[in-house]
């Protein structure tokens, strides 16, 4: 990180985690009404740590990430409350020119669909080199040399020969590697990976996840992995935040959540996935549909689909109850959910 940035974003002078999202609220004002996409999300990630944000489409996991990066479309998006602290400094209050420095150097992001995230009319090497030219003012020749080094680092074969190729000349897995090369170009402290392997085949997915883990180990980055795949999460995460209807419904260290979930939604998800290691009977299916963000259910957003529902779930929004120092569940009856899993 450059000098200017470290002055603004005080290095080492605060006590909290590297990145803290605190009670974030984001809504979208659309013609059909106000869609409350993120309703009070709180999570944190530290250097070298992997946080998995797990949720289905519409749960607000990507919107939270876009808000952290400062790439949310506004309007229609609007941040209506909360803080995002990076090294203790609230990013949402920073002016755009300083925000821009954090992006790429402090926090960077890998997107799901590499083909649409890369510019089709420029060579990939040029696009990677752009990071150095824009942020560091590196000369063209020097930046290109660095681009080749990065392509080597993410293991693109014959990087030197391929630096002038265009995105369409690469396979899906190779494009994702190029995205990763761009994201790690400026040695960020936090890397957000939004469904990085969803569009890839399973053997290529294993390669990419292995690469991400290795890069994280080498540079001690904090990694926020956004995904809906419970298998990928079990493989790499240290801790998990499960999102539903724009809120975190459960957060837990990875082993605790898989062994004994404390929210009916996480429990339902774990029971509803088919397994490759044994053949089950009929799958448990969470009944009903994910909530419509324009008309959120009253009380707990999960109550229309929940087998543990009581009367107060319809009226009272459950807070994120603390189960232990590192665990929380937004369910009035989390004790019951946990107890049932224990026998």
């Amino acid at each position, binding site marked *: 990180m450059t000098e200017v940035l470290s002055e603004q974003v005080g290095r080492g002078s605060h006590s909290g985690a590297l990145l803290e999202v605190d009670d974030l609220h984001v809504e979208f004002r659309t013609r059909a009404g106000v869609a409350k996409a993120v309703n009070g999300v709180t999570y944190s990630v530290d250097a070298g740590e992997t946080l998995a944000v797990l949720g289905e489409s519409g749960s607000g996991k990507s919107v939270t990430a876009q808000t952290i990066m400062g790439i949310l479309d506004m309007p229609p998006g609007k941040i209506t409350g909360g803080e995002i602290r990076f090294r203790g400094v609230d990013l949402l209050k920073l002016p755009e020119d300083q925000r821009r420095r954090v992006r790429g150097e402090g926090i960077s992001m890998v997107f799901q669909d590499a083909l649409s995230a890369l510019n089709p009319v420029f060579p990939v090497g040029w696009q990677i080199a752009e990071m150095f030219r824009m942020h560091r003012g590196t000369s063209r020749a020097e930046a290109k040399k660095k681009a080749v080094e990065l392509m080597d680092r993410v293991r693109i074969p014959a990087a030197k020969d391929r630096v002038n190729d265009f995105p369409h000349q690469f396979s899906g897995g190779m494009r994702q590697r190029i995205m990763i090369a761009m994201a790690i170009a400026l040695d960020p402290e936090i890397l957000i990976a939004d469904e990085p392997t969803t569009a890839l085949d399973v053997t290529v997915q294993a390669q990419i996840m292995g690469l991400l883990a290795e890069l994280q180990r080498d540079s001690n980055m904090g990694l926020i992995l956004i995904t*809906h795949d*419970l*298998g990928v999460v079990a*493989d790499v995460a240290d801790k998990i935040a499960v999102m539903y209807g724009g809120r975190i419904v459960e957060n837990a260290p*990875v082993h605790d959540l898989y062994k004994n979930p404390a929210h009916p939604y996480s429990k339902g998800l774990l029971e509803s996935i088919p397994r*490759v290691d044994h053949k089950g009977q009929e799958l448990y299916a969470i009944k009903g549909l994910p909530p419509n963000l324009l008309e959120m259910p009253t009380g707990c957003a999960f109550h229309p689909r929940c087998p543990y529902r009581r009367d107060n779930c319809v009226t009272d929004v459950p807070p994120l109850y603390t189960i232990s120092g590192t665990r929380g569940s937004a369910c009035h009856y989390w004790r019951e959910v946990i107890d049932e899993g224990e026998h």
Partner: protein
Amino acid sequence: MKANTESILEVRDLVKHFPLTQGIVVKRQIGAIKAVDGVSFDLHRGETLGIVGESGCGKSTLAKLLMALERPTSGSVRVHGRDITTARGAELKRMRRNIQMVMQDPYTSLNPRMTVGDIVGEPFEIHSDVVPKGGRRRRVQELLEVVGLNPDHINRYPHQFSGGQRQRIGIARGLALQPEIIICDEPVSALDVSIQAQVMNLLERLQNEFDLAYIFIAHDLSVVRHISDRVAVMYLGKIVELGSDAEIYDSPTHPYTQALLSAVPVPDPEGRETRQRIILQGDPPSPANPPSGCHFRTRCWKAQDICAEQTPALEARPGSGHPSACHFAEARDVVNAQ
């Protein structure tokens, strides 16, 4: 899931090559994409055959060939002994009634300008002798009810439904002509996890109720294991291993199957540090120019000279009961290996 041994579909040496041409006025063929390159299997009444493989291995082309949407370069697809690949006109139309398809993407496979009633009822317009005109609306409502949709929603449009509900509409359309075979091409891959389970349970219930045979094409190996009685693994246009779900998942013998299975993340963090992974290098080769001999040899850790010279046949190998196309086939449990 019961399966008897009566074959209702027999596929033999099916080949589909798409020509690659050069030149605008005078087109010269300079090669061919070998999308499906000699595939043979049987499908029995009431069973589910899962077909797994990575993108570009030819699974969707295979589905199109079975539906007679594409004509094969060679080979045959026999439904009750009659070859659908050579059928024409009225005979083809009659045969198609018996094989229907559920598509992958419920957002693009339904016409946004047609109501649900029109979409599900369209097969009756084409095959007008199945249900008399007066009874069609009632039949469509029955179908909606069978797949778990509200029959009163018959006049709604696709955009008024969620992804999972749209997939149910696609399934209702597939059921309309009471086929014996349904080809499901990635039917749940576009759906959220919690909805995936609902649709898979529906497919299983319908199979038991109507004695349907499914060809279930998917890239998700966990989904395929859950629903299939038998599984075929494809790589670059060929079936490399074929067996019951237990044979394929618990004692795979082909190195590709082993690599594929070991790459699937298991949703359980216990023991993840010691789990053994076979990580393949690189991407699958282009089907326009597959390697000689065994197509997998360029990424295989067992490859020797014989693999480049002789194409291994899909046949039972010593020490295992199911066919595998590898010279060095050897059973190895990779899923449960810790």
